[in-house]
């Protein structure tokens, strides 16, 4: 219709136009078609369709914000009754300069994905027809409006039958999904500096020398000058974009949602990553200017409050954890013993303990924030990523357990770690019990509080610290209550022989924690390291026993026994270092999480010798492409399930810091950097997966592996 009018206008007016491209039939310029992902649809099950637009070379269509001129394509759907469609999922656009102006759009080809939901009572059998009128503007230098009638008939499958993806369209949809921006993992802040808008994206660990280009595409059509240069600066803590404020925009917006495109230098070539920043408002659903007052502040406070509340509850719960409960109990027992003390003194003990807990939590959190700020790609539980810390905690807890079991008697210096502190009447003793409670609580916080604490860490430092402080308060609360109301202490049973029995019983939750820590250690180190770790436990027991015996020995036996105990401790330290050496990849990989093991060449060689299938992921905290791949293609449930099903061991190597072993493997595959993905089938050379992964591509590769014939549970890579 529009086309006809354009032609008519030209003919009627008889314009002397030498370049009357306004009248060129758009059919030559854009080939539009409608494609569906599944081969058949089913009642009530949403599916994805794509509007595919293939442009003549050098012609382009527009993104949702077309930039300085142009119009985004628009689809008017005509669907059978009961069907509904979602908004267009816009692919990442390109900057298309026209003289000194700037457009945002697509050249060559683009696919606009839309989700369609059929009604729940759709009857199988008769095919349904989806139709849409697509209006678009296509431009080179000149612009031509066009429209296309799109139609697609889809069979309706009966419930319970498999619909499956249409194999013909699989690649098309995989590509279309790869072109969509992923949700930004980083918080962003907007501020105004004169006539510039500054968008600060808290992307930690980026390396400026790896970043080729950065471009920001706002959803708002007026917020910034589209053609103006976007000044970028990158440091370890954030990426900062200075944008020229739009001349037509009046107030500074509270936020600037849009798409951030970062081109990154990787092992071989440049990779383009796109992140959606801020909530993508469904276009046309809400008038953009309708609610500029949606200030983020109340929302943030709410989040802080609820996060702090959750952390507090979590802290309370920690008191019951096997790592903490025994310590708390011993402290309470000491209260029972000292119940004769004046209430004010007891109260001070409670406060000192609370201070100890808070100090330890804040110190841990502060250290974590500082490390993150310095660019280390770590999260909560990072302490446990070091086998040394894990082994150390195991030794500490084992020693405490031995003390409770009575191997070492009260008064022995080793036992002092746990019981001695409680006997020390000084407030200092109570403070350190708090610190100790926190230290031994960390193995429990990591698995139970991981996600909550992880959230806190994405907030500002103040918010993080507040959340950690609430966690500590929760942990300290029961003891604080007991000491604040001396009446509560008096209600506790009188001291007696039962205390010895209770102590003995409390040793077992501690031993259980030790067992768990050894299991964690088994995920982090090779068999040699694990053996060293276990021998360490033996040394701890030996040192405790010989020290205790020495106390009763004569003038010759005593120094001899003490010397032996010290020698055992020295050996323990040496041994611990060898535990760490077996890890080899001094990495920050969250080993032991989600079935992922830290990469070592020794581990890989061992698995390959056993002809096990192995997936190797070489990554780095500063590699955006790696992080995107992990989020979109590797950490998905489907891929995890496929790894499990085929008995694939997942080894992850972290190249955040120098690691010669990983460097060698990269070089062997002709790479000078990460990412590198290798899939070993168990025999022969590995398949090198592309640098940009999609879930579909990974699944397809896993599918090509031979089905496991042996008992799957034999694979060490699988965690329960």
């Amino acid at each position, binding site marked *: 219709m*529009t086309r006809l*009018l*354009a032609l008519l*206008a030209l003919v009627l*007016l*008889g*314009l*002397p*136009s030498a*370049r*009357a*491209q*306004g009248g060129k039939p758009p059919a030559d310029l854009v080939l539009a078609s409608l494609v569906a992902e599944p081969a058949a649809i089913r009642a009530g099950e949403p599916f994805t369709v794509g509007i595919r637009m293939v442009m003549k070379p050098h012609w382009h269509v527009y993104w949702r914000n077309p930039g*300085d*001129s*142009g*119009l985004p394509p628009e689809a008017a759907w005509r669907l059978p009754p009961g069907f509904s469609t979602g908004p267009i999922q816009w692919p990442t656009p390109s900057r298309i300069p*026209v*003289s*000194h*102006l700037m*457009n945002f759009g697509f050249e060559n080809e683009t696919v606009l994905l839309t989700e369609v939901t059929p009604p729940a009572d759709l009857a199988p059998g008769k095919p349904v027809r989806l139709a849409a009128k697509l*209006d678009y*503007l296509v*431009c080179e*230098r*000149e*612009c*031509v*409006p066009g429209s296309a009638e799109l139609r697609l008939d889809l069979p309706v499958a009966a419930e319970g039958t498999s619909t499956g993806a249409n194999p013909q369209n699989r690649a098309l949809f995989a590509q279309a999904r790869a072109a969509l921006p992923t949700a930004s993992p980083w918080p962003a802040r907007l501020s105004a500096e004169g*006539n*510039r808008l500054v968008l600060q994206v808290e992307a930690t660990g980026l390396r400026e020398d790896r970043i080729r280009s950065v471009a920001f595409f706002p959803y708002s*059509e*007026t917020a910034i*000058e589209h053609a*103006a240069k976007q000044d970028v600066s990158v440091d370890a803590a954030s990426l900062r974009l200075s944008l*020229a404020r739009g*001349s*037509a925009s*009046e107030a500074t917006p509270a936020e600037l949602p849009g798409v951030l495109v970062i081109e990154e230098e990787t092992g071989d070539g440049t990779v383009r990553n796109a992140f959606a920043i801020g909530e993508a408002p469904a276009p046309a659903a809400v008038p953009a200017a309708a609610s500029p007052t949606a200030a983020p502040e109340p929302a943030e406070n709410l989040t802080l409050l609820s996060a702090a509340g959750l952390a507090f509850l979590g802290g309370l719960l920690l008191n019951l954890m096997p790592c903490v409960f025994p310590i708390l109990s011993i402290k309470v027992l000491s209260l029972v013993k000292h119940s004769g003390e004046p209430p004010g003194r007891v109260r001070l003990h409670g406060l000192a303990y609370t201070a100890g807990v808070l100090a330890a939590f804040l110190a841990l959190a502060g250290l974590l924030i500082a490390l993150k700020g310095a660019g280390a790609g770590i999260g909560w539980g990072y302490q446990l990523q070091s086998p040394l810390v894990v082994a150390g905690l195991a030794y500490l807890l084992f020693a405490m357990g031995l003390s409770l079991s009575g191997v070492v008697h009260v008064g022995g210096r080793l036992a002092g770690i746990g019981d001695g502190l409680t006997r020390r009447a000084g407030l200092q003793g109570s403070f350190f019990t708090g610190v100790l409670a926190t230290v031994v609580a960390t193995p429990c916080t990591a698995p139970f509080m991981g996600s909550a604490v992880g959230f806190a860490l994405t907030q500002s430092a103040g918010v993080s610290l507040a959340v950690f402080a609430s966690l500590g308060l929760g942990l300290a609360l029961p003891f604080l209550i007991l000491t604040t109301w001396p009446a509560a202490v008096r209600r506790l049973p009188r001291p007696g022989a039962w205390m010895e029995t209770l102590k003995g019983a409390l040793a077992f939750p501690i031993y259980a924690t030790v067992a768990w820590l050894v299991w964690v250690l088994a995920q982090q180190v090779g068999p040699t390291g694990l053996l060293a770790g276990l021998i360490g436990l033996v040394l701890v027991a030996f040192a405790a026993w010989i020290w205790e015996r020495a106390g009763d020995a004569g003038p010759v036996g005593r120094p001899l026994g003490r010397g032996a105990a010290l020698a055992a401790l020295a050996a323990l330290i040496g041994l611990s270092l060898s535990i760490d050496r077996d890890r080899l990849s001094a990495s920050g990989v969250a080993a032991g999480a989600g079935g992922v093991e830290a990469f070592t060449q020794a581990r890989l060689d061992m698995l390959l010798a056993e002809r096990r299938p192995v997936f190797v992921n070489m990554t780095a905290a500063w590699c955006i492409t790696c992080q995107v791949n992990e989020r979109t293609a590797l950490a998905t449930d489907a891929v995890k399930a496929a790894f499990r099903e085929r008995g694939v061991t997942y080894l992850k190597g972290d190249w955040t810091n120098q690691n010669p072993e990983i460097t060698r493997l990269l070089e062997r595959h002709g790479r000078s950097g990460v990412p590198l993905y290798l899939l070993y089938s168990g025999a022969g050379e590995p398949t090198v997966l592309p640098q940009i992964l999609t879930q579909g591509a990974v699944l397809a590769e896993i599918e090509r592996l031979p089905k496991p014939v042996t008992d799957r549970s034999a694979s060490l890579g699988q965690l329960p």
Partner: protein
Amino acid sequence: MSTTRRILLGLSLGSALLALPFAASAAPQVGKPAPAFSATDADGKTVKLEDFKGKTVVLEWTNHDCPFVMKHYGGQAMQALQKKWTAAGVVWLSVISSAPGEQGAVDGQGANRLTQSRGAAPTTVLLDAPGTIGRAYDAKTTPHMYIVSGDGTLLYQGGIDDKPSANLEDLKTAKNYVDAALTEIAAGKPVSVKTSKPYGCSVKYAS
């Protein structure tokens, strides 16, 4: 890096810094003085903004082959608006900033022929082939509309209406921002919609 290259880099960085404030202030702001200009019209006469002191001036960027312009002329809407407001004493300047050889580029004769054949009624048509006025006003699209008050203040800049499309049908339901602003100015009221997103083809400046 050689010393020469370093110096060159420093120089270019320096000049970029110097250029920034000017580049940023290039786009005229509503409520501030509109950029002055001097141009040749279709009859070869020199036209200056200050010639129209005391009168409200409308600037309309145009390119007769642009589908968005064709929508507004094809539906007779632009002509009607020009007639209505020039009759009320408003000065209406159609500006053609297409570079020679680009779409919409015409000479004085061609411009007058267009005015005649389309039944248009601007006060005059300004020929801005070098794009000087277009860049001064930061005109981005055709159409892109500006209204300047009698004392030279920019009162409106943006689109012609609120229906960004090349579809003739949309003229019926669109709210015409220029008509609304001129009505308010004539009544001595402040302009309620002072800016909007201009839509259309890009102005075909020399690349």
